[in-house]
């Protein structure tokens, strides 16, 4: 069992709470008809996205995916910019060009934005890692893929290339049991996704994706190994997507018993229990953090909703770099 420094454990909690608060707010906005397009549910993924983001050094590069709101936040993308992107405003990360978390890249934050086609971001993140080797920089690149995405050819091509290149590359599979409506057993004939690594000569680990400290410890070790020239690692983090694929999806196809089982292991609440039982924080502290997060998210909504829409006259701007 991983025991992290106390202030780090407390920090992990803060970012998970902020992620949860923002995700809850997104669900509410869409239910109230204030959303634009769609939004991807994050509930269940907070520990993985936050811990992996935190385990990286500031110079490392990360390509988060559609369930990694926590990682964007941890890496310094502000709730205001993210919310404005969700609502299609000119002040959003993509200036209204792309929606929800898609395209939320910012190289000044060492963040690479993703496209829908899964997992096309994986080789791109690998390329960042290869550029670090090329320039002998002690940096690491990390990306996430879903269980569904791990079936795709480009996943395997990327792992193979990463292994051959001994690239400083870490891949976190967020195994949330489903790819949209399709359960694991209809996607693949294995139970253990980490075995995908061995056929490519890549080391792997399997972690409880709802234990933020375990995810952190495992990613941190993989990142350290990569930085020292030890090559890539594949980490399977097991969790459950607690809501639908995206906001429109009621996920009636998920058995209630499965949800109940994972609800009892909510990553945020598990960590709160851990912190209180260790005497690191009390209930009052947790309430204060929750309140602070609500304020931050309320401010982000206020900012986004009062932001300008993009000017239609600019629609062709930005297709090409200068």
């Amino acid at each position, binding site marked *: 069992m991983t025991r992290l420094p106390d202030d780090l454990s407390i920090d992990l909690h803060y970012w998970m709470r902020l992620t949860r608060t923002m995700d809850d707010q997104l669900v509410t906005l869409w239910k109230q008809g204030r959303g*634009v*397009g*769609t939004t991807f549910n994050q509930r269940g993924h907070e520990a993985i996205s936050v811990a992996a983001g935190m385990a990286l050094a500031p110079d490392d590069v990360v390509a988060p995916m559609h369930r990694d709101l926590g990682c964007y936040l941890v890496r310094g993308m502000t709730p205001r910019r993210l919310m404005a992107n969700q609502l*299609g*405003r*000119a002040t959003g990360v*993509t200036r*209204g*060009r*792309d*929606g*929800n978390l*898609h*395209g939320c890249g910012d190289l000044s934050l060492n963040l690479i934005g993703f*496209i*829908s*086609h*899964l997992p096309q971001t994986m080789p791109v993140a690998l390329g960042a890692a290869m550029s670090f080797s090329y320039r002998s920089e002690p940096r690491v690149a990390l990306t996430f893929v879903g269980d*569904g*995405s791990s*079936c*795709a*050819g480009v996943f395997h091509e990327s792992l193979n290339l990463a292994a051959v290149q001994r690239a400083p590359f870490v891949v976190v599979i967020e195994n949330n049991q489903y*790819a*949209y*409506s*399709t359960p694991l057993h*209809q*996607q*693949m004939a294995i139970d253990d996704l980490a075995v995908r690594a061995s056929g490519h000569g890549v080391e792997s680990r399997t972690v409880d994706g709802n234990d933020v400290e375990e995810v952190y410890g495992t990613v941190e070790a993989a990142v350290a190994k990569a930085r020292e020239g030890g090559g890539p690692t594949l980490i399977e983090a097991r969790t459950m997507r607690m809501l639908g694929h995206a906001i429109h999806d009621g996920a*009636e*196809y998920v058995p209630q018993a499965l949800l109940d089982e994972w609800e009892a292991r909510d990553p945020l609440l598990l960590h709160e229990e851990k912190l209180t039982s260790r005497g690191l924080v009390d209930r009052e502290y947790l309430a204060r953090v929750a309140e602070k997060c609500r304020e931050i998210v309320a401010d982000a909504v206020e900012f986004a909703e009062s932001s300008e*829409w*993009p*000017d*239609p*006259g*600019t*629609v*062709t701007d930005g*297709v090409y770099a200068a």
Partner: protein
Amino acid sequence: MDSTRTMTYIEAIRDGLRTEMRRDPDVLVMGEDIGGEFGGAFKATKGLEAEFGPRRVMNTPMTELAFIGAATGMGLMGLRPVIEVQFADFISTGFDSIVQYAATTHYRWQAAVPWVIRAPADGGIRSGPFHSQNPEAWFVHTPGLKVVAPATPADAKGLLLAAIRDNNPVIYFESKPLYRSLRGEVPAGDRATPIGRARIAREGQHVTVITYGEMVRQAVLAADGLAPEVGVEVIDLRSLKPLDRDTIMASARKTGRVVVAHAANRLAGVGAEIAADVGQTAFEYLDAPICRVGGLDVPVPFSPPLEDAYRPGADDITAAIRETVAY
């Protein structure tokens, strides 16, 4: 004696699938999330697994390149797979197996590849750059493929029947904005719409608008708005490859003024081919330059004001008609 039923565009697609699956045990459907109670991202295949079982309604992993390639192999063995790519945008993940393998096989060694890819295309629904595309030009540019794009529920069913029965790889572009917003009469049972034959959606004397998919609805709206001063003839192409050149040229010769419209970006789009062909073939009948209406040369933007600026509609078609008529 044919009876008809009124249904939405997407119900007509489902009716077409069901009709063919009942008729021919070699027809099966495959794709992501299409099975079970769920019945696909847009519910086009809802209820099919209950009737035909999981053998014929095959849920696949998210691996377009593998399952489109596999459909080619199944086609070579005489099956008729109907593939659903979840969004037309994701068809690019299977590109090699479509444009290199399936499309060239019959030319090279005379083996037929009778699959259909159903591609939910088109935008206007705030879905951003990767869930809004109209990639038909890639495939019209590929020898060996056929490409269809129904604009009505009747053709959604009729063209699907024809596509499934065709012995070639056919890409069937569905227009998402029509799925539930367009209802129409659909012949019951077995009435295929022949591939390669356009339809005059509306007759007129002064100007011809050539279009397909959801833009047919926009063109008819534009035409209604200009009537009775301007008589607009709207041609619904239905099939983009092969093109019904006879219908196109006859109308161009009749009206002498032509507008070509599509939602896909205009640059090097299907409309460019049609405009060039009409310009060359019906040159001496034309009274005005051929006018093209299409999307801008940018990724389909997400935010509503940007998407509206990107995407042509009835107003743009109206403006193009006025310009052409005023020439």
